[in-house]
């Protein structure tokens, strides 16, 4: 080891120290940062579908410097890909792939996919909605490779569906397999360079000047400065820009997966090769590029230095320009894609809420359970799935409204609106219930100022989800409201077992409370609601108990999650 080190640092530095020669050292430094931060993160991170997201949340929000270490690991990973690209272009343009550097060139090229796979496998580890969607697409791409694809996909996924075994496999690949492969390839790469440098120096003859300069400390000084600057940048980013944590994976959430930026060019290529040709974009082209690069040293031998050098420069230009363009195009398109942006906004909303909920602890059943029981997250999602076919919400979501707009249902404003204009499409206009409209036209329209005020009082009382009957002498607003109800509403509406002599409207006991709404959703045709007159179907059995409770709480304006009974 120390012999290796000695040889490495004392190798001749032909051509002298240069800034652009620091890229290799930067990569080595970044690999060190990843090893260090990775090991640190592993002391908390837990590769389980139910614990992964919460453990990352815990790192982010609870562990001292957790957010910084996680961000460092994240930014250094991206930096590694960028520096790797620069390194590759630099070697291409400077012609250092030619013999005697050709073996080092090949191990270097093999390191590129290792770095990319490290990024892709690490990406899934938080087990978030976005990352799971990405992994789904990526593993299907593997599966669509001819011949070995389906088998490989099964091995990676650990079955047919991404679940616990996939996460464990990805974890092993990310923290052990790829780092080991990278370490071995990296050592070989360095050894080959050291060896080639000596041969190069010998071949160059006894130019006293260049042989006298050894890698250490001449180039090393530049390397150290470059790495210090890079580290400074990374630390600055890590401290000022924490990496956001998306929502945990939940099959009920929307998704619009896009690969991370380093795969966007391939993603874009797939647009031009579809159907059975898709493999050309995801397999043939990347392998062909790699193959072409590996062949460059041979071309050098066959066609001579000048031709090879020109080809290399052209290759670098094509890769940079093509890669840039193919990355830019989908970014452009997505920025203009309203639906994609809407999904991103929704996921951000869920992520923020999930992080808040996690403050109170995540149940052992995992974060999906946390989302499932939360009115704020699932309320609107369930509403759109189950209610919005008929009920609009704030004028949105229902294409063909057939029933009342439930935004603000049961609030004073909503009830008073209904009382004044029951026939408005916002209220009962779309339904066949006409009794309230008749009452409004006959009774409310004729009411005096004082009487209107009394009705208003009943509305206010009703908006408080009233229960119980006041004492005789009681003069509280509640009692006055009850009296107003008794005077104006009791003909058609029941309350605490009384009333509803005339037509039968919904019961007022606890009206608009989560409990009331829950019962209503379960069965609107229950005696206390619409009876035979109900137009809305019963949802008991169609939605789970928890779903109905969650939806009811959300409609009642409550935010507390439904806890396990």
């Amino acid at each position, binding site marked *: 080891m120390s012999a290796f080190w000695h040889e490495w640092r004392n190798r001749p530095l032909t051509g002298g120290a240069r800034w652009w020669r620091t890229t290799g050292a930067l990569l080595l430094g970044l690999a060190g940062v990843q090893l260090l931060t990775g090991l640190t993160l592993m002391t908390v991170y837990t590769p389980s*579908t*139910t614990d992964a997201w919460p453990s990352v949340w815990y790192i982010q929000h609870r562990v001292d410097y957790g957010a910084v270490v996680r961000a460092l690991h994240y930014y250094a990973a991206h930096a590694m890909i960028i520096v790797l690209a620069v390194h590759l272009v630099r070697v291409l343009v400077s012609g250092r792939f030619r013999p005697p550097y050709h073996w080092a060139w090949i191990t270097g090229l093999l390191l590129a996919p290792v770095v990319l796979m490290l990024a892709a496998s690490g990406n899934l580890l938080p087990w978030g909605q976005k990352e799971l*969607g990405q992994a*789904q*697409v990526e593993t*299907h*791409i593997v*599966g*669509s490779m001819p011949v070995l694809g*389906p*088998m490989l996909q*099964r*091995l990676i*996924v*650990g*079955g*047919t*569906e991404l*679940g*616990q*075994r996939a996460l464990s496999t990805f974890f092993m690949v990310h923290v052990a397999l790829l780092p080991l492969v990278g370490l071995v390839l990296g050592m070989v790469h360095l050894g080959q360079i050291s060896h080639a440098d000596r041969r190069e120096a010998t071949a160059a003859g006894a130019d006293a000047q260049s042989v006298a300069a050894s890698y250490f400390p001449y180039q090393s000084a530049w390397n150290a400065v470059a790495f210090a600057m890079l580290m400074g940048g990374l630390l600055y980013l890590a401290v000022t820009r924490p990496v956001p944590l998306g929502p945990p994976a939940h*099959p*009920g959430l*929307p*998704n*619009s*997966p896009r690969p991370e930026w380093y795969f966007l060019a391939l993603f874009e290529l*797939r*647009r*031009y*090769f*579809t*159907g*059975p040709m*898709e493999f050309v974009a995801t397999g043939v082209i990347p392998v062909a590029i790699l193959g072409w690069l590996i062949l460059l040293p041979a071309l050098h031998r066959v066609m001579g230095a000048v031709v090879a050098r020109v080809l290399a420069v052209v290759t670098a230009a094509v890769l940079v320009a093509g890669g840039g363009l193919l990355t830019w195009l989908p970014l452009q398109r997505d920025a203009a894609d309203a*639906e*994609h942006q809407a*999904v991103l906004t929704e996921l951000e909303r869920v992520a923020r809420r999930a992080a808040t909920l996690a403050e109170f602890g995540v149940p052992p059943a995992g974060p999906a359970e946390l989302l499932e029981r939360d009115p704020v997250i699932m309320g609107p999602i369930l509403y759109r*799935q189950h209610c919005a*076919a008929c009920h609009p919400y704030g004028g949105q979501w229902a*294409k*063909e409204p057939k029933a009342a707009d439930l935004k603000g249902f049961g609030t004073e404003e909503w009830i008073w609106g209904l009382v004044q204009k029951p026939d408005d499409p916002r209220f009962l206009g779309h339904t066949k219930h006409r009794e309230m409209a008749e009452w409004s036209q006959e009774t409310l329209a004729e009411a005096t100022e004082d009487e209107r005020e009394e009705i208003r009082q009943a509305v206010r009382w009703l908006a408080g989800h009233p229960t119980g009957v006041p004492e005789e002498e009681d003069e509280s607003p509640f009692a006055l409201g009850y009296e107003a109800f008794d005077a104006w509403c009791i003909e058609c509406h029941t309350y605490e077992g009384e009333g509803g002599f005339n037509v039968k409207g919904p019961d007022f006991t606890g009206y608009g409370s989560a409990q009331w709404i829950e019962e209503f959703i379960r069965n609107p045709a229950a005696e206390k609601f619409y009876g035979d007159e109900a137009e809305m*179907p019963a949802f008991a059995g*169609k939605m*789970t108990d928890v779903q109905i409770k969650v939806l009811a709480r959300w409609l009642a304006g409550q935010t507390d999650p439904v806890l396990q009974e």
Partner: protein
Amino acid sequence: MTRRMLLALFSRIVAAASAVAALVPNVRFLADPLRRREETGPKRYRLARLAELPVGEPTPFVLRGRQVDAWKVYPSRILGQVWVIRDNDATDADHARLRVFSATCPHLGCTVNHDPEKRRFVCPCHAGVFTLDGEPVPSKELGYQNPVPRGMDPLKWSLVEDETGELWLEVEYVRFELGRPERVPVA
């Protein structure tokens, strides 16, 4: 000299045999996913009363059920989504016409949405587009390559009477291999 060669050969063989012995169980372990068969086959789901389904308008349904993930069992998990289109307002089993499609995009498995303005099914991932019959929209019409390898997967459905005599739509949910022109159920 022969003794030396023999010993060398011997040690090589013994070392190789030990290596293979160590390797075999590991290879078998790693290949486990290839041999494991999850409980699959069509599962029946009761979706809605026929009378409740809007006519002509694609309606989404979420299918929930028991899911086993290695050693974890989830009693009620979202397993898939389907789109149902009721074609006429007939309320009897003989005349009612329906179309039921899995909402899983046959390309790479994203969930297909319905675009009510264009009256098309649209996949958010790679902009795959289908007609309301589930057929891929020709690339010419789109102005770009439609990435989907086949149409949306139709699912078998039936109308089943409950105790009160009401008709319910039931669907047999199957997942198909993605990214292929032909429909192969996931085994």
